[in-house]
């Protein structure tokens, strides 16, 4: 008996995607997951633009992680021009990223993932019976937004962050205020992590390669090298290890490392950097009697919960370190060069690479988003997970697959907007 399952519009994820699966005698013959969004060719749009314009343009790639794109883009330009931002700038960038991480994780965990597990259709439905949880989520989102707004000037597509530094600095009072607010959110973050520790994940294990940044000092965010269990390489060398290719059914690319899928995201970060977590975050993990590394992709949700606790702690630490002093952005002097920026964003590692000429015009650009990197791994997971589901009703089966996809927190609007583009010179 053969049948084909086609999920036309997968809901509760960012962007549009379809999944086509065909099963023949209990064997999965075909499994294609791809983005169906229109392409936006951002890499093409960057050509001929000044390097300092890139952050403003690439921020539009994604609404939910616009800070991440802005900062990654800034890092790539700075790497190309040899600019070293000051410590204060780096701390402010990290704080903005923490704000974004908090709101992104909260949005995903409560609005996109949790309704599946509690048996609701949506968070709006959920708010009738589980008001406590929904309110908590909204508090966390609000905190994240306040952090990003204080530093970046706006919740989305931040305005104050520029190549070389900050156009406008928050005042010390604002930073202190933020610290107070982050402290208040500690209970919420712990409650979130505990909630997701208590949720029963489907039993499914599949080992893959887990890649994340790691700088050997802190839990990774803006700095470090790319690491996995078996390899370690510098940011600039990413092209030697990661390879992009394209499939007909998807408007986003796929990325492989030596022809094999790998995973990025909260789970990878935790698998590689567990020891750098804050005390509170570690306590959550030991209390739940969970040991990292974990190979169950559904546990990505729990990993995000743990990260939420960690980033709240780290946010307080960064606020403490910050003693705002007046400084102007470092002046930009153009030169010919190539620069790679790789940072950890909510869904994994984000890569921006630009080449520019001596006038500062971008001549080539390459951007790889986390979801592109996870896409193939998701497919493989679905392939392995499906045979155990075949006895279920079709509705149940689809829900289970959707759960799996959602646990990755994919962002298809990000992923589909890059096509590998060959530049003609």
């Amino acid at each position, binding site marked *: 008996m053969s049948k084909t399952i086609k999920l036309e*519009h997968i*809901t*509760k994820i*960012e*962007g*549009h995607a379809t999944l086509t699966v065909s099963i023949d005698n209990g064997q999965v013959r075909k499994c294609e997951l791809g983005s*169906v*969004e*229109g*392409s*936006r060719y*951002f*890499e*093409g*749009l960057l*050509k*001929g633009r000044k390097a300092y314009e890139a952050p*403003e343009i690439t921020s*539009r790639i*994604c*609404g*939910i992680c*616009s800070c991440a794109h802005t900062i990654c883009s800034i890092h790539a330009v700075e790497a190309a021009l040899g600019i070293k931002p000051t410590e204060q700038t780096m701390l402010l960038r990290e704080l903005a990223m923490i704000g974004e991480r908090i709101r992104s994780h909260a*949005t995903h965990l409560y*609005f*996109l993932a949790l309704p599946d597990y509690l048996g609701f*259709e*949506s*968070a*709006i439905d959920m*708010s009738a019976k589980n008001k406590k949880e*929904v309110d908590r989520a*909204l*508090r966390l*989102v*609000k905190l994240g*937004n306040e952090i990003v707004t204080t530093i*970046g*000037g*706006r*919740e*989305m*597509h*931040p*305005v*104050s962050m*520029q190549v070389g530094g900050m*156009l*406008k600095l928050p005042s010390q009072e604002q930073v202190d205020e933020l610290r107070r607010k982050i402290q208040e959110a500690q209970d919420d973050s712990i409650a979130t992590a505990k909630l997701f520790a208590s949720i029963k994940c489907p039993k499914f294990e599949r080992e893959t390669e887990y890649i994340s940044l790691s700088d050997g000092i802190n839990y990774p965010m803006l700095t470090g090298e790319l690491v996995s269990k078996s390899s370690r390489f510098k940011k600039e060398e990413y092209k030697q290890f990661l390879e992009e290719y*394209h499939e*007909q059914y998807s*408007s986003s690319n796929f990325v492989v490392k030596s022809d094999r899928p790998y995973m990025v995201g909260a789970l990878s970060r935790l698998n590689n950097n567990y020891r750098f977590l804050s005390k509170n975050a570690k306590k959550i993990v030991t209390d739940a009697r969970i040991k990292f590394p974990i190979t169950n992709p559904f546990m990505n949700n729990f990993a995000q919960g743990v990260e939420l606790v960690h980033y709240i702690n780290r946010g307080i630490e960064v606020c403490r370190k910050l003693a705002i002093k007046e400084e102007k952005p470092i002046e930009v002097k153009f030169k010919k060069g190539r620069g790679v920026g790789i940072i950890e964003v909510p869904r994994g590692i984000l890569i921006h690479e630009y080449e520019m000429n001596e006038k500062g015009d971008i001549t080539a650009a390459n951007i790889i988003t986390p979801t592109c990197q996870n896409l193939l791994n998701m497919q493989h997971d679905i392939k392995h997970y499906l045979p155990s589901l075949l006895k279920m009703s079709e509705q149940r089966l689809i829900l289970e697959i959707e759960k799996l996809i959602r646990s990755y927190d994919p962002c298809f*609007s*990000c992923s589909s907007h890059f*096509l*590998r*583009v*060959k*530049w*003609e010179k």
Partner: protein
Amino acid sequence: MAKEKPAVGFYDLTGCNGCLLSFLFNEDEVLEMARHFDIKTFRFIKEVKEEKQFDIVFMEGLVACNSDLEVLKEVRSKTKTLVALGACACTGCIPAYRNFIDSSKYVAMVYEKAREMKDVQPVPINKHVQVDYYIPGCPPDKKQILEFMKDVLLGKKPNDYDKPVCFECRLNENRCLLDDGKMCLGPMTRGGCNSVCTNGKLECWGCRGPMPDANMAVMSKLLEQKGFTKDQVRQRMRTFFGMMIETPPEPKPIKIKPEKKAKKIKKAAKPAKKKAAKRLKKAAKPAKKAKPKKTAKKMVKKQKKAAKTVVKKTAKKTVKRIVKKTVKKAVKKTAKKTAKKAVKKTVQKAVTKKTQPTSKPAQQPAQQQAPEQLKNNSKKSFLSMLKGRFKK
């Protein structure tokens, strides 16, 4: 509650989901709003979709592929009121900037085999269907979306903000960024954003689109005086609202040129290959190979030239029109002083033309006429198009 809740749909075409998120980021009010509206569809956070009839649909994103177009047309036929949410839907935003790029520079691509993805020319949604309201901005101010929804509940006609960014920027007591030598488009850009970018000391990029009476020519001149080149200024203006001030060169860039080029070269290359198979390694051969290539190149060059002249001509025409129609005063002054008048006029015109859509949208017969209107629209001058877009 005796009163029926308005049926609402939130849709997203190709875009970044940022505008819908902006709505959700009204953390304190979003649940309250969800109670007052009957949210039928919201793919981003909702599994179930009931796509029967809507009173209002908020549409995010722009049309960039065939499926976008299908969704858009279907939704238009099911809703009484269509609201373009965010810069992509209103002006095309950055994704539509692609229309102005010489694709031959970057397109011959690895993406070649996936032609079936069916890209269409990226355009704001009002190029395909009639739009009743616009909430501009990249992203739109979250309070502005809330304000709009409140107006709907109260049966009030939502208002457009009719002053340029400069107005709010002054109220916020910011230092003028033009004086600092930055390429700020604030004087000609529609406000309502509380000058959020200039508050953060970033120059205005014009994400909310130009004012209906914006004087591009003077703005451009002003910036040239500040030391920017004409190209830089044009590039900047095209980034967020290029589709509103110019008609991009037609034959759509992505497909046509590379395909023709590829075909010609292939045809030419085939016989050469056969000969190679026969091991004819003579000096004459490369010459044979080269000839067709040259012709192909020439073809491409000709096409390029033709495209360029078209652009030049249309650009000149539009510039002439603007100069004629708007008074040649400093941009700031005109923007402030004439803004009110112009908007009043357009409002009056619009009111006489249409009934108010949100309060009793069902009586609106304009929907069926939409396609013809649009056809006419595309032929009109850019300024009248502008007015048409912002008319309420």
